[in-house]
């Protein structure tokens, strides 16, 4: 079933965005599509508005950071759901850390508003066209993006821990 879905969605995406579809593969039982940044908005729009695919539910979206993947350090994963048919797919898009901009999908899914704010908060991904792009979970004074791998998890202000005792 899932393999058929993979083929079917691949064809739909090829017809819609052409070379914007970079990769289509199964991750275990989950169809995953890698899409060019310039085509991601159009791809989601097509998948949502096409009555055949009808992915009208945005389950989640999240940021990705692979520091060793040069030119594609940062990424986004969108998980879409077709509730009547119970079809679920993942879309991924990658872009360089020097230029972390992605078109917003708040015009397609209003629920993406807070999710995109969260990804801005933790990864510094700038969503172009987002109506209110500011930090959502961390304090406003925070001056870095804590989920990027170059930043340590631990609180830098803590003084009572040292390497001998806690392995820091």
């Amino acid at each position: 079933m899932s393999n058929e879905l993979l083929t079917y969605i691949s064809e739909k995406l090829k017809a819609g965005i052409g070379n914007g579809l970079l990769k289509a593969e199964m991750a275990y039982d989950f169809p995953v599509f890698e899409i060019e940044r310039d085509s991601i908005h159009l791809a989601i729009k097509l998948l949502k508005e096409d009555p055949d695919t009808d992915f009208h539910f945005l389950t989640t979206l999240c940021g990705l950071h692979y520091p060793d993947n040069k030119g594609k350090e940062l990424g986004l994963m969108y998980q879409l759901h077709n509730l009547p048919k119970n079809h679920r797919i993942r879309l991924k898009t990658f872009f360089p850390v020097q230029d972390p901009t992605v078109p917003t999908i708040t015009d397609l899914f209003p629920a993406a508003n807070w999710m995109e704010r969260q990804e801005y908060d933790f990864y510094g991904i700038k969503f172009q066209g987002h109506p209110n792009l500011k930090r959502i979970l961390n304090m406003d004074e925070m001056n870095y993006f804590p989920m990027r791998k170059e930043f340590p998890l631990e609180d830098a202000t803590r003084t009572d821990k040292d390497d001998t005792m806690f392995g820091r």
Partner: protein
Amino acid sequence: MLTETDKYNVVQAPPGVEGSGFFATSLDKAVGLARKNSLWPLPFATSCCGIEFMATMASTYDLGRFGAERLSFSPRQADLLMVMGTIAKKMGPILRQVYEQMAEPKWVLSMGACASSGGIFDTYSVLQGIDRIIPVDVYIPGCPPRPEQVIDGILRIQDLVGKESLRRRNTPEYKALLAQYGIE
């Protein structure tokens, strides 16, 4: 009824001069006695320590036995700020505002590892101890502490309250302490 003090656990009068029809003691001691046995705590409960605090307030442990059963959910009427649980950095300014809104005299009790030191949450989003933003009088260790420990903490607060001189809050030391935290 109150003459049978061996049957009822009644707080003893402070040392003073007693005679026929009068009892004299210092105002400090009388006020301290009244204050320490009628604390109004403000529970600032953010996580599992708050659950232990609920057990402490409930019938088995019953903090009411120590005169602290009247919780104040308004900082303006509270004497004792009980911070129980992880304080995220984003929560910090709110905690500080609550502290600033409390009227003098006020005491702060930090319950559990998180409130006292950040606990296991050694991470970018968590305040590593509330004493970074407000002065703390008593720390209760534990993760979470048992209700017995909370009661012990309240008793330690009562010791402080009962012995506090009436003018302590006007002393240069106290003002310097608050100034250290940037609180007027």
